[in-house]
């Protein structure tokens, strides 16, 4: 029990130092602000949806809130679409989709990766070898293509997209975890063997997490951006949320033909996707730079 | 009487790092004669490497050089990189401490040495700028560039160049030079790589070769071999060598003259036999004591008490004073100058500040 409470303190210390790192570099601070804005919006929208309250200026499904296809104005920041819905409201309303997919896929990949990597290192031998080959093959699969095929099979919806991506996203985390676990394993093998089998296992995993967390957090932050881009792609292909419900990628796709006549329609959601990803990139890069400067 | 090749006079080199300034070399004066083998000896941080780098002009950008280094009537200290380039590859060459990383990993040995030869030819024979195009012409390469073990498929250097490169490899006693020519650096051992470096430097037929700790990274046997083949060619080529080392024993094996440096300054400067038979500076004597005897009687290794001074905050007077067994009050107040005796055995120590000695 002593060991676990010590680990908890280390974990909270790491989070605290994470915040210090963010403050250290301008890049990271800007990124953190952007990410926080998107996260907050996502959470607020999700909660208010569940409670049935409307936070956006207009309802995302509400038609004829203004003249059809009108350009950006004070009352409609991103204009209106061809049935008069407020584009800004729809973009806000769609925030939880991308953000939740981004965060949950990376979190799942992280956990799954650590699990698989640790098991592989722990068991060793042929099991390890096979598991790593399996990991390499999954990693070599073209991500978008496989995710797309899985998505088609599972059917539309945000949850299905999450599952499709989670299935293929874990390999880099597994490799990282296994590498770390092997180091620990060699060091603490004797000690671990003295304690019963189950406890050794727990100790290895905790140690792995502790040592990895620095590198992993940076990688994971950048990875969330990548997932969001991939999800936006799947959404564009019509595999996620179906109209009339709003989703960023889907909105770009259905309005791409209006690029010349009503450019705000496809460009606004596209820009928001990019802005979201930029936030995660700045944050990840900034923290990495801060860590390297030591 | 030997001619003086390089005359260093009151050379001072400082590095500035942010707000601090380190004086790496402090008012150093020494001479290198033609065909002379000079050993510059001292501990890490005494400025010997900096001295070597400054002669060939490869100091880092944050350094300032004051004083003069007269080489064939030109003050090298005043030259910029462009001007300095003309001396490298023809007059002055340098080999470095880390043979494992000093050769380009993607080119074969023959290409790298041939390149050195080509530079020499261009500079010495035509005096033109060494551009890529001119180099191509001198290479006279033919054939398309397919990286392959099959020599006839690869772009080869001309046979004339190959013969010359082989000659230089033979000079450093590499057995089977035809094989070594084809090799990449990573296929060779540390000792072999260092020989290649030496061959490469000698192939430029420099008047002055600076060797910065060339044997430090090698094992003792290889070290002895490398030292020997640095000494040997001196009969055949008219080259002076400055060997920078922390190891007095190494210097004793091959040098004509020994210069001992401490904290950026010259402590003693003498002909090798004279130095070892009567060392004068307390630091030099202490260094000689440190060399293990190798016999059973030498049960305790002696070390010099104290530590090397902080180069950022040098104190007044002789830098060695805090550790000197013969320290006097005078030593902490003023810097002793370099004084020579009849045998041109120079020392910077108040112990010898005798009106009977000659001053430089």
């Amino acid at each position, binding site marked *: 029990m002593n060991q676990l409470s010590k680990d908890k303190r280390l974990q909270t210390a790491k989070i605290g130092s994470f915040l210090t790192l963010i403050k250290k570099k301008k890049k990271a601070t800007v990124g953190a602000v952007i990410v926080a804005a998107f996260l907050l919006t996502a959470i607020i929208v999700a909660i208010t949806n569940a409670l049935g309250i409307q936070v956006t200026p207009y309802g995302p499904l509400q038609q004829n809130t203004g003249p059809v296809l009108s350009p950006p104005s004070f009352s409609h920041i991103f204009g209106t679409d061809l049935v008069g819905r407020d584009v800004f409201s729809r973009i806000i309303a769609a925030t939880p989709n991308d953000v939740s997919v981004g965060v949950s896929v990376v979190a799942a990949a992280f956990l799954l990766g650590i699990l698989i990597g640790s098991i592989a290192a722990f068991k060793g031998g042929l099991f390890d070898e096979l598991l790593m080959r399996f990991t390499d*093959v999954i990693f*070599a*699969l*073209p991500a*978008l*293509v*496989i995710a*797309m*095929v899985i998505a*088609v*099979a599972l059917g539309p919806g945000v949850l299905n997209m999450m599952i499709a991506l989670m299935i293929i996203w874990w390999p880099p985390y597994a490799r990282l975890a296994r590498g770390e676990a092997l180091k620990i394993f060699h060091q603490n093998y004797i000690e671990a063997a003295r304690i019963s089998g189950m406890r050794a296992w727990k100790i290895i995993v905790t140690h792995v997490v502790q040592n990895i967390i620095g590198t992993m957090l940076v990688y994971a932050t950048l990875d969330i*951006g990548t997932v969001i*881009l991939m999800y936006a*792609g799947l959404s*564009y*292909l*019509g*595999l996620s949320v179906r109209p009339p419900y709003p989703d960023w*990628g889907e909105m770009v*796709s259905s309005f*791409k033909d209006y*690029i010349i006549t009503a*450019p705000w329609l*496809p*460009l606004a959601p*596209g*820009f928001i*996707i*990019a802005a979201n*990803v*930029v936030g995660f*990139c*700045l944050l990840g890069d900034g923290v990495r730079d801060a860590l390297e400067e030591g | 009487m030997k001619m003086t090749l390089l005359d260093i006079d009151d050379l001072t080199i400082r590095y500035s790092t942010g707000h601090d300034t380190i004086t790496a070399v402090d008012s150093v004066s020494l001479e290198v004669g033609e065909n002379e083998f000079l050993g510059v000896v001292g501990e890490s941080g005494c400025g010997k490497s900096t001295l070597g780098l400054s002669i060939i002009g*490869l100091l880092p950008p944050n350094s300032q050089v004051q004083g003069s280094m007269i080489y064939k009537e030109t003050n090298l200290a005043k030259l910029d990189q462009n001007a300095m*380039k003309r001396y490298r*590859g*023809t007059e002055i*060459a*340098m080999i*470095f401490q880390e043979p494992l*990383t*000093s050769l*380009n*990993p*993607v080119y074969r040995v023959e290409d790298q040495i041939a*390149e050195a030869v080509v*530079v020499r030819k261009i*500079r010495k024979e035509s005096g033109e700028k060494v*551009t*890529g195009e001119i*180099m191509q012409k001198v290479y006279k390469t033919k054939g398309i560039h397919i*990286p392959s*073990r*099959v020599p*006839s498929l690869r772009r080869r250097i001309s046979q004339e160049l190959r013969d010359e490169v082989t000659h230089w490899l033979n000079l450093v006693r590499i057995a089977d030079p035809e094989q070594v020519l*084809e090799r*990449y650096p*990573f*296929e060779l051992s540390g000792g072999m790589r260092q020989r290649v*470096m030496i061959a490469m430097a000698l192939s430029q037929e420099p008047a002055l070769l600076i060797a910065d700790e060339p044997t430090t990274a090698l094992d003792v046997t290889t070290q002895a071999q490398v030292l020997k083949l640095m000494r040997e060619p001196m009969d055949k080529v008219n080259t002076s060598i400055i060997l920078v080392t922390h190891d007095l024993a190494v210097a004793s094996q091959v040098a004509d003259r020994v210069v001992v440096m401490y904290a950026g300054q010259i402590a003693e400067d003498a002909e090798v036999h004279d130095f070892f038979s009567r060392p004068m500076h307390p630091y030099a004597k202490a260094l000689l004591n440190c060399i293990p005897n190798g016999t059973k009687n030498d049960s305790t290794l002696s070390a010099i008490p104290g530590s090397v001074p902080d180069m950022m905050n040098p104190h007044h007077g002789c830098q060695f004073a805090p550790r000197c067994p013969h320290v006097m009050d005078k030593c902490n107040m003023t810097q002793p100058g370099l004084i020579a005796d009849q045998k041109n055995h120079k020392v910077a120590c108040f112990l010898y500040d005798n009106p009977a000695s000659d001053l430089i």
Partner: protein
Amino acid sequence: MKEGRISVNIVSFVLRRLSFSVVVLFSVVTITFVLSHHLGGNIVAAWLGKTASLHPELARLYTEKYHLDAPIWVQFYYYIVGLLHGDFGYSPSRGFLPVLTVIGETLPFTLQIVLIGFIISMGLGIFLGMISARYRNTPIDGGIQAFYLAGYSSPPFFMALILLIIFADIFRLLPSGGAFDPNLAMPTSIIGIPLLDSLIEGNWAFFISALAHVLLPAAALALVTFGVVTRLLRSSLLEVMRTNYIRTARAKGLDEDVVFYKHGLRNALIPIVSLSSIILTWLITSTIFVENVFAYPGIGQYLVTALFDQDYPAILATAIVFAIVIVLGNLVVDILYAVVDPQIRLG
């Protein structure tokens, strides 16, 4: 030393990569097969698409031909056999043409975009990498970083739309859709890629038109992907120029140009070769979106319309073809890497 004996290392290296590629492709095929059983509820529907109910005789024909009533192992066997014969089924969204035919018509156009996109991406990436290394920590460096950050954060379809509106509408420099001017005659098929065929043939009118049409989509791909190349080359160059062998090169008396290009860049580019397989994969996947925005008749556009029309044979087949192209591309780059780095080749 035996002349003419090729190093054992490079042969075993190629074999290893090749066998791994085969495993990957086999996995893709298995995945598509397994998933085809979960599409549209009914396996026949998967193969015929949503028109299954309208053509019962076709359904029977299909069941016979593809052994759709046999156990799954048998089906899988015939599936593989079919694929190896080039039988990818028939495409309902294209009037039941054989999928392979449609792929044959569309793949060359995709390869055009990928080729030009790759060239622009690597070229731009390397060029800006050298500049940002040379001018590091200056506003130029910062500007380049901001530029590529915007690039790789943009979804490819967004980048494509931006380029479209700027160059095809505001400036009216380049066409906004299609692969070439339909009034022009196609070149004869030599390699099979129209852009290159017209070049070889000297069919300049077609070549200019095809090039004009490929430029914007390729640029969209390039602008999204070049950033990682720039970033890697910058750090690689900075590291290389600090090495001991560069110091040796200078000590030899070489001109700074020669030191930089022959010794520095040659080494700094080695990790870029490795990176280019990732760039290639990224390009090939992103082309799906870019083709859609520019209505470019490539295999990506085929896939997008197939998704819309629920043309399952086409979806699965294009997935496999994408995987093949990606795996082949990576294999070529891996071999190139062995050529470029002597330690892999011989060590």
